Every structure is written in structure tokens, then in C-alpha cells.
């Protein structure tokens, strides 16, 4: 298995983190995930600063963002990423409980790549997360220069 962690999950709720990891674990994707608990930490990771200073260089292949987080919320992280030339190509998926129209509009206006409402039902949730992980890290061709890119042969269960 490649050493590089190539999914960044920004989620403040430990229960959601655990469920998400459990879902990804079903498909042995969990060990490729870096979890940060708020927007500020997500930016620290992306810019390799603070706690994440000196991490393995390279952008993640996918960023999963919760909307509502302490300090810096998901929309703000999205805005910063899409305005930064080096982070702009990184696919960002909103993974949230909110199906509010305003949130959708805002996210797409800021350039989000996908918007997924977390299903209440666990099975549906597992399926949604699994599809996300597989699509963005396996089927999707990441932009050139993404340090996290992996040949498809190395990831499968």
C-alpha cells in the first residue's frame, strides 16, 4: 500500500468521523484518509503548516468537507482553495447533512466539484461514501501535479 494519504476529510463531529471511516474501512480505503476536525486545521494541512508542518508534500487527491465546522467552516475552506492556483485543481466534495438551497448555491458558486447529502440511513451512507471514495480516487483522473496520484493497481482491496 502506498504511504501517501490521499483523501482529506474535514469533519468536526467524531461520530461522523467514525461512521465515515467505518464506511470506508469496509472497502479498505480508511488508511488513505487524513482526518482534520475543523476548517482551520484543514487549511493548515493543505498549506503544510502548524501541526502539519513537514508532512509528506503533495496535494490530496480528494477533499471531503463538512459545511458546519468550528473556527473556519467548509465554505470558507472551499473559497480559499478555489482562489489559490495550486489548490484550485484539487477536487472538493461537500459531505454534509444540509440540503438547504442556499448552501448548494453557495457551494457551486465557489466551484465545488460535488455536493453529497449524508443519508440518515446507515446503509445508504456507507454506499454513498464508498462510491465517493472509489470514484474520486480510482476512476477519476486527478489533475497533473497531484502528488497523491496512484496507479489504479495499488489501491484495490
Amino acid at each position: 500500500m502506498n504511504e501517501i494519504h490521499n483523501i482529506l476529510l474535514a469533519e468536526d463531529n467524531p461520530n461522523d468521523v467514525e461512521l465515515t471511516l467505518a464506511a470506508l474501512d469496509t472497502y479498505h480505503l480508511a488508511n488513505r484518509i487524513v482526518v482534520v476536525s475543523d476548517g482551520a486545521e484543514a487549511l493548515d494541512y493543505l498549506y503544510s503548516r502548524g501541526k502539519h508542518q513537514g508532512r509528506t508534500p503533495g496535494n490530496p487527491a480528494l477533499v471531503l468537507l463538512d459545511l458546519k465546522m468550528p473556527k473556519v467552516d467548509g465554505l470558507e475552506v472551499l473559497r480559499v482553495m478555489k482562489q489559490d492556483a495550486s489548490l484550485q485543481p484539487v477536487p472538493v466534495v461537500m459531505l454534509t447533512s444540509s440540503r438547504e438551497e442556499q448552501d448548494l448555491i453557495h457551494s457551486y458558486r465557489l466551484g465545488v466539484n460535488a455536493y453529497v447529502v449524508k443519508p440518515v440511513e446507515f446503509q445508504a451512507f456507507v454506499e454513498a461514501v464508498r462510491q465517493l471514495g472509489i470514484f474520486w480516487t480510482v476512476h477519476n483522473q486527478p489533475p497533473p501535479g497531484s502528488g497523491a496520484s496512484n496507479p489504479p493497481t495499488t489501491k484495490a482491496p
Partner: protein
Amino acid sequence: MALRNVPIRRKLMLVMLLTCIAVMLMMRATFFIYEYRTFREATQRELSTLGRVVAANSTAALAFENQEDASETLSALRAERHVTAAALYDRDGRLFARYPEGVADGGLPAAPGRDGYAFNGATLDGFEPVVQKDRRLGTLYLRVDAGAVMHDWIWGSLRIALAVMGAVLLIAYLISRLMERQISRPILALAETARAVTARRDYSVRAQKHGQDEVGLLTDAFNLLLVQIHAQKTALDEHAIVAITNDQGALTYVNDKFCAISGYARGELLGRDHRVVNSGTHPKEYIDGLWKTIAQGKVWHGEFCNRAKDGALYWVATTIVPFLLSDGRPFEYVAICADITGLKRAQAEILTLNRELEQRVFDRTSQLEAANRELEAFSYSVSHDLRAPLRHIDGFAQLLNTRLDGKMDDTSRRYLTTVTDSAKRLGVLIDDLLVFSRMGRTEMKRVEVDSQQLIAEVRTEFQQEIQNRRIEWSIDPIPPVLGDPAMLRQVWANLVGNALKYSRRRDVARISITHRIDPADGHVFAVQDNGAGFQMEYAGKLFGVFQRLHHANDFEGTGIGLANVRRIVERHGGRVWAEGRPDEGATFFFSLPQIPEYRLHLAAAHL
């Protein structure tokens, strides 16, 4: 000078004198004819008397055939100026003597004619027998120049007539002078009064009455007219501000009210124009328009803001009436105004109040909007924060289930299933609640909606669910309405869905959709079923959020559908109500305001 322009007193005198002259002439003519005849008879008689005297005097001369004596006797006729010729004839008719001496034989009759006197052209001829003791001695002939006699007589008669006529005319003139004073003086006085009234506009004066004749009646009528005008003017002055200007715009009359409201004395106003009270409020075009109107002889209505002497502004509602000459040009403008300063002030106050009210409405709307935003924030957090723990409950229950799989007894498994089911149900409730909350907030369209089409679409949606059921549909033709298509679709979906749901235990479900126009409610739609129905005493609870009359075990549902229906219909300006009986069915009604056809098209065209 034409007779109609001659003063009445002259006319009267003329009439009188002419009448006198005519009467006199008539009388004189009649009298003259009578006198003429009398005069002729008298002349004849006189001549015959003269003839008899001369004949008597001539008897001796004839008897003794003394021609000298005969001539002597005849020559005595010289005293009779009008006797121009005379002659004596003897018994045998021979000329015996003649007068005057030198008259020729031809100037006298050759032989005596028949005895008697007769007018013969311009002369009167007479033959008188000369008789002595019944013995005829001869014939006397006399000739009188009747023309000269007449001439004298006519001249005498005419002199008398002229004298009399002169006297009569003098008397007539004097009488007419007296009469004329009686007749024309009151008329002239009346005219003078009328002139004074017009010049001074003083309607309180009265014409003096001189008698009960026609002029007296005229004076009465004139005075009555003045009384009426005075009364109306007094009434007008009590009510209105009146000003009269000449064709140049200079004030020629102002009433007391004008002076009172403007603060100027009458003397300060007369002769000046309306600009004396000009406040400068009105643009030039406004004043120009006014002049244009009244100069054309048309009446002008409008409002003016004027400035009084003390600088205070006052408003008048004004009517200006031009008085026209016979050629159509105005010579005078009468302005009648009402003081509307109070009205204007009230209007301004209303406007201020309106503005305040609008501000208040604006403030209240802002507050409402703020509240709405808060509500949105609330539903946002409901959507986000309430769902997360639910997901966790379900997620961890599932994980637990996986972990304990095979090691759990049935009771434990049922407990775990209940936890999962409850979480799912709560999720549905939250979703419904969010939809309901959004229904009250989202922007509403107003377009022409084909309800018939909506119902057809809704029925198609349920097709899958009802394919094994027997359902008898009865759907009225339904006219288009004005509203939000998505929202109205939800109304139909809810009502039709309910009808299908609650009638599913019938062998044959009967569902009818009807439409009627109600004078108060407008469009009234009804969806009727023969399903489970409900008790009327709970009808009020039907449309509340999460209010249900059936157990979820009997008929599934969250109790939000009819609340949504009510919210949508009320936002459209209509209302909802229901009728039902347990086990017999239910009818759900909703109304939408009726918009006249043309306005429907108009509204649709503007959307």
C-alpha cells in the same frame, strides 16, 4: 333719425299732435262739404232776393218803355261786387237794357231763359220775371261770378280753420308735455337706477315707483330682480371669495371675503391684478394655461396657492368664468373661490401620516424579514444538526448489529430494529417539517395554471400504487386559475393522494373532483372519496402540523400533508375546509380567489 331711436317723450308728442291734426282735418273736410252746399243755396237765395228787388224796381221803366230808367235801375247793381252782368228783356224777349253799359250782345243771353236760378259752370245765372199786377212786363237776367264768391268764402273759412287748428295744436302740445313727464320720467329713472347698479355693483338700491301702470309693474319686476340678485350675491359672498377683473386682468371688484382672506383693503386691490396675491407656488405654464383657457371664453377650474398681505399662504379652489361680448371676446372675468387651506393642510397631514404608516409598515416588514431569517437559520440548524445525531443512532445501531450478529437473542434484535426504525421515522418527520417550513418562505409565482393538467399528472404519479385497485373517477372540467404551478401541484397531490390512501379498503373506491364558482370564495374545488372518513368534531384538527386522526398502523403518514395544503392555499388567498363521516368518506374543499378573465390574461401577459 330712425323713428325707433327717437326718445319716447318725442314719440308721445308726435303721436298726440299727429292724432290731433288728423282729427281736425277729418272734421274740417266734413264740415267744409256741408258748408259748401249751404253756401251755394244761400248765394242762390240771395241772388233771387236781389232779382226780385231789381225786377220790382224795373216795372215802371218797362211799362213805360223807358230805357234810360231801366239802365239807371240796373246800374244800381254796381253795389253788388259779384254781379258781373245783368239785362232786362221786354215782353217779347227783346233786349231792353243791359249792365254794365258796354257789355256786348254776345256776353248776354240772346233771349231770356226759363225763370229760375241755376249754377252754370263758374257762374250763377238767374231769370226773374218782371210782373205788375199779374201782368208780365218782361224778364230780368242776372249773372254772378260764382268763382270769385267761392274764393272769398274759402279764404275766410280757411283762416278760421287754421286759427282753430293752431289753438288745438298748442293745447295738444301742452297736454303732451304733461303726459310725457308722467310716462317717460319713471322709465328714465328706471334706466338710471339700472346704470347705477351696473356701475357700482350695488344691488341694494331700489328704483322708485311712480304709479300702478305698466311702468310701475316694470319697476316692481326690476326691484324684485334686484332683490333676488342681491340675495344670491349675499349668499355667494357668505360662501365664496369673489373677484372680478377686466379683460386686462385688473381687479374691478372684490368682495369682503377676498379682502378678509388676503388681508388687503379694497382700495389696495382695485385696479391691480391678481399678482398682488401671487405666492410664486405655481409654474408659469400653469398660469399661462389658465389665461389661454379663459381668453378663449372657456370656464377654468383649478386650485391656487396665494400669499396674503401678512405673508401667510392660503389655498383656494377657483372657478373663473369669462363674460363675453357679443363678438365672443371676454370683457370681464369673474373668479369665484373657496378657501381650501384647511383641506390642503388635512391633505398634507394625511400624506405625512401615510408616509409614517409606510415607514411603520416598512419597519414591521423588516422585523418580519428578520424573524423570517431567524426562522431560516433555525430550520437550517434543524436540517443540519438534528439529522446528524439521527444518522449516528442509525449508523451505530447498524455497526452494533454487524458486530453482534449471531450472538443476539430475538428480543435484543427487535430492540435494535426499533431503534433503527424510530430513527428513520424521525428523519422523515424532519424532512417533512423542513418542506413545510420552506413552503411558507419560498417565493411564489403567479401564472395561469391548468389545473386539469396538474390533476392528470398527479394521477399518473399514483398509477403504480393503484394498479391493482378498482377506482371510479369523476372529474369536473376545471378552468385555469392564477397561482404557483409547483405549489398547486402539491395541493392536488396531497388531496388526491389522501383520497386514494383512505379509500384503499373499499372494493370500489369512488373519487370525484368538482369545481364551482362561489360569490364569496371564487373558485371552490372539492375532492371527495368514499373512504375511512372522520368525525366532524375533529375537522378543525385536520389541517394542523403533525395532526392526525388515524393511527399510523392503519394509514401511514406524518400529518404534514394537509398542513402544507392549507399553507399553500392560504398563500394564494383562499381557504380550506373539510366535511366527513366516519366510514362514509370525506370531502376536502379549497378555494382560490376568482380573477376576471381579462385580468387573468393581463396578469399572465405581465408575468
